[in-house]
């Protein structure tokens, strides 16, 4: 039945964990909709046959048909509303499943630019256009764009999410079986929008570990030369977290943040990722890729409680690849040992003044 409906509706294969559930809702909604249309069409046909005009001359005055009663009107309205809201209930539950990324998956950083996808892995690999993932494991994509809005779309996984410059958006999936699945850019992004395509290659966990995780170089795509140049590296491939350390040093992050849990002007990066951060204003947030990116771009938006709002913005200064490297560095420190006696904020933290423009100020 599932297979029949899927083929009838021309849907791609169900290659992700939630694709089948999504499709069941799809079948239900479409079937109910088409039955509704059919009912309207049949009623129209029946009425126009039964009440067709029989004489061409003006027909004599007929009794005025009774208008619909309030009960009929409101009954129809509420019945329909119940049906539609029923769709919504199922839809929004699935929507929430897709929006909330389960923790502990494989994190891959996606950078979109006109008109190419590139993927950065924690071990320092970078591929263009082809995303390698293991089957049966949650894969989280932390995505950002270098230029305009793109949209990451894998029809076989039933996932789609806009990729926005200056922000990190997340999407997740787990591939159910090995295979090659096309990636499309779904948000119009200029001249070569329609050829901004890629593919997801799902490998069995063993094959993935063997072919991909051990070798530092990607099996298919070449390492992007620009990535190294941007990071000021010497060309040798290192893990993304190591690149993050270099970025942190070069961009002056380490002047305020530490990597070992020692408190300083800013929160330490040790044991930060995935933990709850108490905020100066309002409820705590979990430090994920989106929050960390936001904190680099808009540091004053959600200030860690106990720290002065002194961090300048890095928007327009940090490249997307550098942001990814920093996030990966912080993520690699998620379980780092922390000095148990260290107070959250040292009482004698030196008074600081608002720093003036960073090197070169904000982008002109």
């Amino acid at each position: 039945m599932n297979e029949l409906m899927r083929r009838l509706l021309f849907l791609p294969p169900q290659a992700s964990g939630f694709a089948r559930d999504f499709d069941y809702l799809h079948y239900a909604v479409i079937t109910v909709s088409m039955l509704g249309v059919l009912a309207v069409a049949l009623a129209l046909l029946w009425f126009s046959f039964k009440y067709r005009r029989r004489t061409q001359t003006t027909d004599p005055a007929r009794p005025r048909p009774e208008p619909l009663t309030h009960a009929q009107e409101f009954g129809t309205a509420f019945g329909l509303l119940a049906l539609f809201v029923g769709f919504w209930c199922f839809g929004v539950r699935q929507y929430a499943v897709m929006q909330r990324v389960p923790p502990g998956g494989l994190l891959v950083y996606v950078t979109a630019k006109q008109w190419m996808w590139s993927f950065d892995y924690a071990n320092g690999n970078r591929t263009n256009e082809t995303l390698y993932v293991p089957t049966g494991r949650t894969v989280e994509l932390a995505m950002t764009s270098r230029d305009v809005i793109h949209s990451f779309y894998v029809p076989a996984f039933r996932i789609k999410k806009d990729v926005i410059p200056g922000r990190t958006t997340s999407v997740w999936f787990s591939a159910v079986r090995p295979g090659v699945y096309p990636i499309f850019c779904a948000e119009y992004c200029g001249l070569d929008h329609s050829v901004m395509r890629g593919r997801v290659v799902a490998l069995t966990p063993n094959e993935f570990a063997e072919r991909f995780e051990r070798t530092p170089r990607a099996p298919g795509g070449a390492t992007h030369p620009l990535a190294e140049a941007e990071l000021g590296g010497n060309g040798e491939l290192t893990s993304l977290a190591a690149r993050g350390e270099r970025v942190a040093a070069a961009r002056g992050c380490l002047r305020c943040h530490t990597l070992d849990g020692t408190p300083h002007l800013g929160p330490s990066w040790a044991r930060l990722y995935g933990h709850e951060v108490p905020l100066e204003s309002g409820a705590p947030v979990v430090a994920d890729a989106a929050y960390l990116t936001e904190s680099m771009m808009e540091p004053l938006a959600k200030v860690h409680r106990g720290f002065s709002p002194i961090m300048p913005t890095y928007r327009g200064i940090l490249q997307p690849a550098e942001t990814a490297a920093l996030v990966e560095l912080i993520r690699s420190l998620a379980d780092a040992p922390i000095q148990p006696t260290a107070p959250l904020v040292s009482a004698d933290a030196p008074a600081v003044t608002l720093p003036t423009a960073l090197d070169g100020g904000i982008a002109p």
Partner: protein
Amino acid sequence: MTAPSLTLPRTVEEPPLLAPAAPADYLHGGGVRSWLLTRDHKRIAVMFLGATSLSLLLGGILALLLRVELLTPGPTIMSAGAYNRSFTMHGIVMVFMFMIPAIPTVFGNFLLPLMLGARDVAFPRLNLASFYVYLLGSAITLTSLVAGGADMGWTFYVPYSTTSPSAVANVAFGVFVLGLSSVMTGINFIVTVHTMRTAGLSWHRLPLFVWSLYGTSIIQVLATPVLGMSLLLVAADRLFGIGIFDPALGGDPLLFQHLFWFYSHPAVYIMILPAMGVISEVVCVYSRNPPASYRAIAYSSLGIALVGFLTWGHHLFVAGMSLFDGAVFGVLSMFVAVFSAIKVFTWTATLRRGSVSFETPMLYFFWFMFLFAFGGMTGVAVATSSLDIHWHDTYFVVAHFHFIMVGGTLTAYLAALHYWFPKFFGRRYNERWATIASVTVFVGFVLTFVPQFLLGNAGMPRRYYAYPPEFQWLNVLSTGGASILAAGMLLTLVELGYALAAGPRTERNPWGSRSYEWLSASPPPTENFENELVIARGPYDYHLPE
């Protein structure tokens, strides 16, 4: 609002029938100058008919070019750049120069005063100004063609639209000016409905077309300025770099999407509400029946106008909007669907115990019902948040809004054109040819867009110049359908053109309608009615002898 008085005698004081040699109707008399400077709502309507038809022609030719390009997976007849510019222009022309203005400015202008028993709209000079502002806006928009075209899509999404190396600013200014024309018409109509109703014409005796125009006008007045401002911001960003939406300057590109859809979702109802009004009139006339529920149709027009403002966020489900907003906008979108569904049921029930005949406008009513119900139900489907993830920005959405906007608005527009043709020009069209054209349009339409639903399911994103080869055969089907649709439209043009030039003269009220616009001569004299009209019955009282 006063309730209809039931105690009044149910008779109508009608003007005497005009003799064939009666004083000239509105079409005759005066030279070109008297047309160009006219304040007569009927002449303005006819000028709008000409202008919006040209827009439809331009948009249609572009659509056909796009479909031809998509015959093969790779380049067919144009480059990727030309394709992007063509679909942008197709969208801009169709949405802002045809769909939004067409029915209100042509049929609304012509019929609103007639349906109210008035001599003209409340502000005739403003009405003429609205026409010239429309021309000016269209001209500015079309200058982008001379400047090499604009390629940002009709949605103007930043930051692409602020960085695109094409004539985006021309289009932004043009659409801003077109919006001004829209606001002017909206204000005029609302004031007209409030102040120009003739004696005895209470709110509950208004023809349903008036209610739908009233709802449309509310949206035009309240939503259009928001779009105008957001487009000015895009233009300003391109010219001076204000950076409000530019991420590199700390701006937020999603803010633009909010503003854009705050107008553009209600704008969907600007397009469809007048169409619903036309359909309400047509179904009653050709089934010789009052609407199954006047209330339901009238108040759901207002409901759509107001709730339509609460649903814009469903265009942002995959745009990185918060889960909270996603849930809220999802459920609100379901509410607005209920109003439309109620209308569908009421129209269907209107045929019951009627006397149904099958002239061309009624055929269009059937096409409308089928296409609108289909398009509307797929609308409910795409409003279901999790399903929208797969469908968003694919051909499924393209097919969905074409079903609503073309299947709904265009068929209603054609129904109106045929139904009120005798009223406009005093001539009859040829029923046989019109029927052939109508069936051709329907078949072509279904064949064009049903394959597009399937393409969307299969995952083909919209605005794709090149596509994977496995999508080809559905695209070929769609292009085939588009050529049949084009043939049907061409046939309509020829058939109505012939009727305009040489159709047989008609009597005052060829369809036996009870609506008030038929109480004046066809075509009406400049003053609309010989004597002041006093209304003593409803517009759908088919149970009374005429």
